[in-house]
């Protein structure tokens, strides 16, 4: 999967970074990174600790503003936009730490995302009946991730794996064209990794996914394209087979007693 038959040309790439650089007080966490994510691909960013994966990710999602360089989303320059703006355009991120609304119910968690496009979010004078039409879609999304039975639990009551599934449902609620996932299996027990990987694979259907991931078996089974970062720069890019046999990558990982 992942390969699409989109027409060739500039439209081939859903997300592009050109000369992306981020400097924190003199330290360049990301240096001149060029990245092109093909439409419909599942593209991984990997690298040893401190390689600049998370900074790079935060730049792509507009959580951080780049020091230099441009970011193109479907050909449009989004370098100067904010997270909320790019989210409305269809570029939506997830978070490494479980990004739930713990005091809301599972259904409400998803409904918050659905409200994004519903135009009633500022209506403080109306009852919640005004957003009840969204419940049906929310339940659909929860069914897709296998949480329909937990819809009325408070989010804190969910297990870690289920929280991540709920987050994915929340992200999917925005019908993103590009999904950016920050270490979706981080801190997860073995029994949860497989279902979440499956879930991401299903969620990626018809979408482009950029994923930062530590778990290399997840990367190998999920991703079409892998960019390896080291010291804030692109070390190499290719398929898993290409990347995993690249001697530089092997050295980077083996000698990778990097600062974390």
């Amino acid at each position, binding site marked *: 999967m992942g390969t699409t038959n989109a027409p060739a040309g500039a439209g081939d790439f859903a997300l592009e970074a050109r000369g992306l650089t981020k400097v924190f007080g003199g330290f360049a966490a990301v240096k001149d990174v060029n990245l092109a994510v093909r439409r419909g691909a599942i593209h991984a960013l990997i690298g040893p600790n401190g390689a600049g994966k998370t900074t790079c990710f935060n730049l792509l*999602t507009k*959580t951080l503003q780049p020091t230099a360089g441009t970011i193109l989303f479907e050909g449009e320059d989004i370098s100067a936009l*904010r*997270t*909320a*703006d790019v*989210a*409305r355009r269809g570029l*939506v*991120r*997830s*978070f490494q730490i479980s*990004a*739930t*609304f*713990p*005091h*809301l119910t599972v259904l*409400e*968690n998803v*409904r*918050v*995302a659905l*409200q*994004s*496009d*519903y135009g*009633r*979010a*500022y*209506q*403080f*004078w*109306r*009852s*919640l009946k*005004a*957003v009840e039409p969204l419940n049906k879609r929310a339940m659909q999304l929860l069914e897709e991730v296998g949480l329909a039975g937990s819809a009325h639990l408070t989010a804190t009551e969910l297990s870690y794996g289920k929280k991540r599934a709920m987050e994915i449902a*929340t992200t999917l609620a*925005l019908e993103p064209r590009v999904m950016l996932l920050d270490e979706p299996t981080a801190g997860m027990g073995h029994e949860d990794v497989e279902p979440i990987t499956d879930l991401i694979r299903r969620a990626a259907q018809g979408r482009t996914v950029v994923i930062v991931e530590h778990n290399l078996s997840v990367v190998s089974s999920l991703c079409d394209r892998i960019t390896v970062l080291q010291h804030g720069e692109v070390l190499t890019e290719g398929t898993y087979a290409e990347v995993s046999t690249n001697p530089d990558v092997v050295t980077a990982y083996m000698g990778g007693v990097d600062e974390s």
Partner: protein
Amino acid sequence: MTRWPMLLALLAVALVAPTVVYPVLLMTVLSFIVFACSFNLLLGYAGLLCFGHAMFFGGAAYVTGWFLKTTGASIEIGILVGGLSAAALGLLVGLVAVKRSGIQFAMITFAISQFVYFVLLQAPFTGGEDGLQRIPRTALLGVVDVSKSGSLYYVVLGFTVLAVLFFYRVVHSPFGEILKAIRDNEARVESLGFRPERFKLIAFVISAGMAGVAGGLKAVAFQIATLTDVSWTVSGEVILMTLLGGLGTLAGPMVGAVIIIGLNDFLSQFGEWSLISQGVIMLVVIIFLRRGVVGEIDAFLRRKKVAPAR
């Protein structure tokens, strides 16, 4: 559903209360209920700790008093004008403050409230240290005489009931849902395409406006507006009421207001002891009642409900 009989019982108690308790004390309690609810909307549902909420409460008391004295308009108009003026002030303060959060937000609101205090001390219409005195209790809707405390009480009660219903609506609205989400995880809300600071600004304006209504109610109840109502101690008191009663619960701030005002009234005969008792209460809340009175009762009932099932 099971709450309705309790609420009706509470309303019945409120209706007959003036036959037992001094009406001015009751009106103080009611105005502080509205005030504490407005504060709770901010801290409990938007996660914003305003450490200068008295500027809206006390400021509006002056505006209501001054407006009623100079125009002689009917009493409900005076109270609403107080609320609107506080909402306008809230918009100005909010524009500066909501971009910050946590301790910065608290300190900015505190600084502005101290500034407002100073302005009100110096302004010609406030009567300085003496306060704005002899605020008239004009007729309700221009016809119903409410100059006696016994009848004014019902006006204040009416406003309070409407205010509490309004708070309930705001919290259980599409807007309230997003607000709670922002309190829980602001970065995530932003990543879903919302502008959190706009929601916080609206919540701040609503909260300030309702604190103003509370101040207006207090002004007509006491027929005086004083600097005390704008002082930082009142800002602190409303925090105490909300935390004591239970943050982020609808009933919490009401219970907190009843307890604190009741205690203040009871302990006033012992002078400084009322302050010491507040300190002790604060400690007890922090150590034993993290969730506040209502929060702890809620948690207890939930445990009881769950226990037999297991």
